[in-house]
């Protein structure tokens, strides 16, 4: 029941925000903030409860669930369930939700009520995506979050907002419809085999499919998630959408919407079609690597700060794709950290770019120069997150990318090397930004206000969290591990994705275990 509340609170808050928006511009903000904070608190409480009972309840997969008949004629259930993976994603959702409400506090001045209505609806849709285990419900939520996102970009975005919003909408819609066809085909095949109409995740797992059908269906799901992720060559909506969206929109897009793609791959693509995913893995990993390098190279060529950050997302999410299709415990642990850390660091970068734009009315790097002299604190914070995002050891992103590479190494050396080169390029563009926008003489004579109280309240916790993940990621691993084991178990029939003979790695693994016992989970 508590899971329904997580969504219901957001919906109610959205409606209240819309209504109260008629009276004042303050109420919608307060209501939305309160709703997201309450949800965040609930999610944290669930986490604590879960981590306390984790040793006892390792057998049951979901530690919370709600299952109501919805459209019984078609075997559709309103079935929400939470495991470690969903929990982490939900916590991230609410954290970034709080940040996006705060980030729009000053930026959004028109249509405040409707803005927060949309914001709440997106968050509700995203939470729904992370919790749904009925495939119809999943698709419902998947589509639900698109419309408010469209409005967010189309109404409150920047210059080319209509173009960006329409492009975003069309890309995600068409890929989603392919997923719908795949879901339905799977549903009818399952019915043909078992005689039961069901969209239930657990029922559909292990449905007997011919390799050919499995491959087609897998591609149907894959395309939907690849567009969201975004995977090269389906990424072209992303730079436009991110650049034109208001700050809150960019934060949610980069921090959460992209994660739904990675989540879908983890939860659905591989477990539902292990054989096909195994076959497809080399291609997926190749595309992931292309994304890593291509994203970094294009980021290096940008002069618009926001666009630059947007392209870095293509690059970072490439790691997630590579890691998912490497599909071994180390890589998967890496993926989950990449998802969370990227959400926070890129979200923060977008917020900072938004703040910069508010102050200077530009996002062009050439027009900024020597900002360090006038806003040292903000520049410092920017550098912190920029370095985090390229994987400075001690910060969250490092752990994620390092583990992903480590896991990928056991599958393919070539991919690992190429991905590592991607990291190298990312240091180049980061240095370029820092150098061109913040260092140097203040030729434009900027005199700007430095970080305010509200901005500090947003930035400091995010910095601390990144630092926390970087120094002590164990709580995340611990929460994710049971869920990961289950996922691997579902994908088990074919021992998945061990391209290199296992014996080759035995000494290496033992070495690793001595260094860091947490990294070698499969030994337990």
């Amino acid at each position, binding site marked *: 029941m508590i899971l329904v509340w997580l969504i219901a609170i957001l919906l109610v808050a959205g409606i209240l925000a819309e209504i109260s928006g008629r009276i004042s511009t303050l109420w919608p903000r307060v209501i939305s903030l309160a709703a997201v904070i309450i949800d965040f608190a609930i999610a944290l409480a669930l986490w604590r409860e879960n981590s306390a009972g984790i040793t006892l309840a390792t057998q049951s997969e979901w530690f919370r669930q709600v299952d109501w008949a919805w*459209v019984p004629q078609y075997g559709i259930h309103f079935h929400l369930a939470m495991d470690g993976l969903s929990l982490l994603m939900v916590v991230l959702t609410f954290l970034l939700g709080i940040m996006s409400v705060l980030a729009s506090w000053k930026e959004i001045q028109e249509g405040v009520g409707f803005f927060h209505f949309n914001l709440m609806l997106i968050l509700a849709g995203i939470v729904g995506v992370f919790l749904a285990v009925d495939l119809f419900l999943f698709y419902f939520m998947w589509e639900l979050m698109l419309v408010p996102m469209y409005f967010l970009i189309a109404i409150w975005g920047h210059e080319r907002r209509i173009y960006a919003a329409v492009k975003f909408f069309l890309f995600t819609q068409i890929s989603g419809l392919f997923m719908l066809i795949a879901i339905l085909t799977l549903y009818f095949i399952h019915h043909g085999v078992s005689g039961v109409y069901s969209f239930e995740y657990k029922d559909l797992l292990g449905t007997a499919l011919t390799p050919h059908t499995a491959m087609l269906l897998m591609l149907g799901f894959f395309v939907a998630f690849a567009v969201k992720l975004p995977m090269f060559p389906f990424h072209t909506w992303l730079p436009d959408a991110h650049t034109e969206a208001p700050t809150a929109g960019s934060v949610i897009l980069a921090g959460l919407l992209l994660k739904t793609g990675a989540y879908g791959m983890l939860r659905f693509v591989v477990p539902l079609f292990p054989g096909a995913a195994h076959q497809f893995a080399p291609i997926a990993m190749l595309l992931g690597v292309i994304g890593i390098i291509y994203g970094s190279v294009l980021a290096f060529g940008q002069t618009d700060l926001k666009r630059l950050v947007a392209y870095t997302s293509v690059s970072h999410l490439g790691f997630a794709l590579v890691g998912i299709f490497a599909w071994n415990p180390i890589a998967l642990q890496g993926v989950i950290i990449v998802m969370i850390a990227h959400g926070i660091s890129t979200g923060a970068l977008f917020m900072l770019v938004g703040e910069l734009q508010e102050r200077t009315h530009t996002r062009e790097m050439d027009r900024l120069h020597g900002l360090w002299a006038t806003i040292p604190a903000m520049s410092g914070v920017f550098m912190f997150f920029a370095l985090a995002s390229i994987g400075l050891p001690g910060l969250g992103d490092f752990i994620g990318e390092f583990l992903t590479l480590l896991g990928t190494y056991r599958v393919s050396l070539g991919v690992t090397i190429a991905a590592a080169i991607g990291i190298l390029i990312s240091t180049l563009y980061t240095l370029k930004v820092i150098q061109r926008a913040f260092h140097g003489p203040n030729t434009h004579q900027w005199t700007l206000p430095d970080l305010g109280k509200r901005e500090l309240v947003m930035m400091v916790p995010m910095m601390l969290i990144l630092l926390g993940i970087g120094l002590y990621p164990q709580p995340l691993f611990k929460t994710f591990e049971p869920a990961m084991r289950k996922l691997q178990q579902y994908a088990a029939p074919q021992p998945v994705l061990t391209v290199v003979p296992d014996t080759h790695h035995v000494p290496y693994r033992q070495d690793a275990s001595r260094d860091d016992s947490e990294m070698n989970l499969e030994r337990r």
Partner: protein
Amino acid sequence: MNGADLIAILPLLVLTAAAVVVMVAICIRRSHLLAVWLTAAGLVLAFASLWKSASAAPTQATPLLIIDGYALFYMGLIIAATFVTVILCYGYLENQQGYREELYVLVLTAALGSCVMVASNHFVSFFLGLEILSVALYAMNAYVCSRKISLEAGIKYLVLAAASAAFLLFGMALIYAQLGTLQFGQIASMLMSGVAYEKTLIYPGMALMITGIGFKLGVVPFHMWTPDVYEGAPAPVTAFVATISKGGMVALLLRYFYETGAYRLHSVFVVFSIIAIASMVAGNLLALLQNNVKRILAYSSIAHLGYILVAFLAGGNRAAEAVTFYLVAYFVTTLGAFGVVSVLSNDDRDADSMEDYEGLFWRRPVLAGIFTLMLLSLAGIPLTAGFIGKFFVIAAGTSASLYGLIFVLVVTSVVGLFYYLRILVAMYRPLAETGKTAPVAHPSLSRSGSFALAGLTVLLVWIGVYPGPFLDAIQRAVSTLRIF
């Protein structure tokens, strides 16, 4: 015909009586309000009498009419939709000059025709129903006769509808000449036994009938009238044409092709596949080129009928359910969309240019919100009835492995998003950009109109969020269809 038969066809009798009563009332005292009240009362009575005749169902009342759960369900849908149209007409006509009351007689007659169609399993009642509906529509399309465009719509519809009726009649005659029967059931047994296939005139007969049916549905290549009539007819009448006239024909299409088993003929399948694909492609692509909201909706309705045909082609109970569900969703949505258009219209012209919608959200947030929901439902986005409808259509297609058709549906429906989004973009454009600083003077929303729109919106979201009860009713209704 005995007493039980009379009870079975009670809804039809009530509608007929209501039309007469309104006509007489106009002779005695010309009052818009009175005419509306009488019409509404007639419709409510007719709706209530559905339960009475349900007690007699299923029954074959005279050789012409079959009163079963399916017919009653569709009658209910038609009567309810007519009720909404009447409310919209009231608000719309209040702003118009000239005689207003006769429209209601026509509306009742047209509804009667549509109700006859959904209950017919005989060529005679098929044709009678169609003609009752069509003749009433000729006048309705041209009702606001001070506008040239409305007259043009009426004439166009008259000429084309008469021609298509001739095609239909010729087709029926050919089939009759070969099989010697007008009854769906008997045609079915002849098709089943294989006798019919040796007769050469069956196929031309079928082809001519499909022409007539296709015209009424407004599917490609029989769609030429749709945009012009949609544009020219007064907005509430457009709503009527889009829903009740097409809906009655869809119901008949299902019954005719399913109960005779003709949908199993390979050639019928091919023809309808081509029509469906052409409608989806042409409807969605041509809508992109339009600048007039009513014309956009017209082309979009062509595409929607194409989607319905995809489900129809899947065949079987599930397909019939999907078609019916889609139609219910389409009714609610289309009535809502044209409802918004008609409450925004004034005595001079209908609110059909894009400019009327520029920045509507900032001027009339509630109305714009309703229109947004309706457009999203047409586009098939969750939380709205259109989403569930589209889902069932795709499900029906997938279950019959019609992947080619489904693929076209998916791709074209994304193209379709484009023009729905265009209207949305216009509605949410900031006032500063549109240059309209002050609210444009529109007649304030009439109470009746807002009542109807609110009801439709609630229904739209209800069906979209909790479709179970509706699906239940539809399943029960469709199960009475004798599908071969």
